[in-house]
């Protein structure tokens, strides 16, 4: 039980990210404990959040959650139930309002400004996140992925195609066109899931892609398009053209190949 409790403590710390927005929330709670006289608001903005916080750290609740959801990694979402933002804003404005009335306009303004500055300084700017980048198009997908997909996507009425893409592109392909099917997708490239897939193992080799081995597997699986990793990042064991591949184009450093041998196998097998 103690171990589960300590895990919840770690989850809470990770959720708060070591910034002091949590402290602001706790200060607002303490202030409302003293200043809020309305019993129903006390129930909703003091007792309810505090009991949910206690519940979060309560090991049996965590056990029930994991049993029901079948997943302990998302336990942090219980913290979404605590209206931290609303309580922080309400506490800050209530304090600023009281100072405004009792100590004068400037005291109220200063309290509000201080609250705003504390939020800015104690938080982290969401648009500065490493996961944010300038949108290249309305799809918000990398433009080179769209260009590659446009090269290989089947025309209207044609059957879907199978393709292999480098690890860094697999996330985006099927967000643009699901008529392009992948031999491996995101589930294989997430390290935390630790799945193994032979084509991905070859494509994910740190320095060189063994083209012969790769084609053995892709042709077995009727894959007609192969997009190799950016030429800057990785080499190949032999020129793909030696094995019958045709280079359609190189898009932003990614060579895009068509495999007529695989196309012939499809023709022979399915007519």
């Amino acid at each position, binding site marked *: 039980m103690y171990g589960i409790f300590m895990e919840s403590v770690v989850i809470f710390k990770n959720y708060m990210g070591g910034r002091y927005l949590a402290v602001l929330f706790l200060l607002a709670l303490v202030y409302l404990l003293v200043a809020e006289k309305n019993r129903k608001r006390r129930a909703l903005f003091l007792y*309810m959040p505090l009991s949910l916080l206690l519940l979060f750290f309560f090991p049996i609740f965590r056990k029930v959650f994991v049993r029901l959801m079948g997943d302990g990694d998302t336990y942090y979402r219980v913290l979404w139930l605590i209206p931290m933002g*609303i309580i922080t804003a309400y506490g800050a404005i209530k304090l600023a309002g009281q100072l405004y009335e009792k100590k004068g306009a400037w005291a109220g303004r200063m309290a509000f400004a201080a609250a705003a500055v504390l939020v800015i300084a104690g938080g982290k*700017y969401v648009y500065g996140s490493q996961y944010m980048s300038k*949108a290249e198009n309305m799809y918000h997908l990398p433009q080179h992925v769209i260009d590659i997909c446009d090269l290989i996507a089947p025309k209207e009425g044609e059957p*879907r195609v199978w393709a292999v893409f480098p690890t860094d592109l697999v996330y985006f392909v099927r*967000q643009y066109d699901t008529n392009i*099917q992948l031999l491996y997708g995101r589930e294989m490239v997430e390290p935390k899931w630790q799945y193994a897939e032979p084509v991905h193992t070859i494509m994910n080799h740190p320095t060189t892609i063994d083209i012969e081995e790769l084609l053995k597997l892709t042709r077995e699986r009727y894959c007609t398009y192969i997009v190799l990793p950016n030429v800057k990042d990785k080499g190949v064991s032999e020129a793909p053209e030696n094995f019958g591949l045709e280079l359609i184009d190189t898009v932003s450093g990614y060579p895009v190949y068509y495999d007529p041998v695989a196309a012939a196998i499809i023709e022979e097998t399915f007519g």
Partner: protein
Amino acid sequence: MIILRILGLILWLCAVPFCIGLIPMPWIPKEKRNIGVVLVAGYLIMLSLCWLVTVPCILLVKYDSFLAMARLFTIVLGVAVALGIGVYVRSYKKGNPAVRIPALRLGAMGWEERVGWLIFFALIFWQLYKSFTLASFDGDDAEYVAQSLITWQSNTMYLIKPYTGGTTSLDIRHSLAILPVWVAYIGRMSGVHTTILNHSVLPFVWIPLTYIVFYEIGRHLQKDKKEHLPFFMIIMALLQIFGNVSIFTNETFFLTRTWQGKAVAASFVIPVTIWLLLWIFDGKEEGENGNRKRPGKSMQSGQGAGLWVLLVLANMAAGVCTSMVVFLNVVLIGAAAFWLMIAERKFSILVKAGLVCIPNGIYMILYLFLHA
């Protein structure tokens, strides 16, 4: 073509939910009816209807289940829109209009209040601008966004693996949280690619809707000091923009994964639940020292019934977004009801809260049954 698509988006994302949102308004206290509340109610009803239509289609229709869903949902929405317009006309004739257009009281505002609102709207504009001009990378989009596109392009629901395209037996884990299907439906009706919808259009829906909810919460909390409301809203907006203290916070989800079901649940459905609890239970007049007084006039005349219905719909909308929040919303409502029961010394609050959570119970039983 582009103009037609924009008009289509306005129709399906603004006009339709607005008309549907008129339905419960006569059962909501008069002073609480406004355009924002109608729109939020419209989305709650539309998403709930979408679940009621989609899940049977997923479970019972073998081929082209999305086609069946789209046809049925269009009919249901058409009926709901007609009903909403009918309710509006009837309530207008009775002198009890379903929606109140608030007068802009610019003249009555002091300079501080005006500056406050100006700063707040600038912060909203900043969030909308950034949502359009910045791309946010999230691995879950490979499942979530692709799911909408598969539905749109293949006319099937949850039968194709989103990551690769291979066929699969019904994906039970995700098939009850059908927000991607709703997105696919909007894409089909408006002709807009679902990935553009998810990444570039829907932030213009979910971000304003969330702020409407925050506004209503703030308006209620500051009802005696309306001049403080813009400052409450500024702090709320700053908390969203600077709430990225980790990748786990609801604020981070709100502005980096706005279109995903879990983000909608965390930033819209849960605040809606808190807002409705506040409206329902804090609607009665109360003295500064906490003495209980008689319920307000509107609550006495039974106009609060619509709020309970909206709470039921919020629970159903949670199920549209993500299965987890169906369970979490029960915990939230249960905790709130427990403390409100003590505050009001009324056991009936707990009973009512239990009744409101019946859809969650049905959803969880269905979830467990399908998983078994």
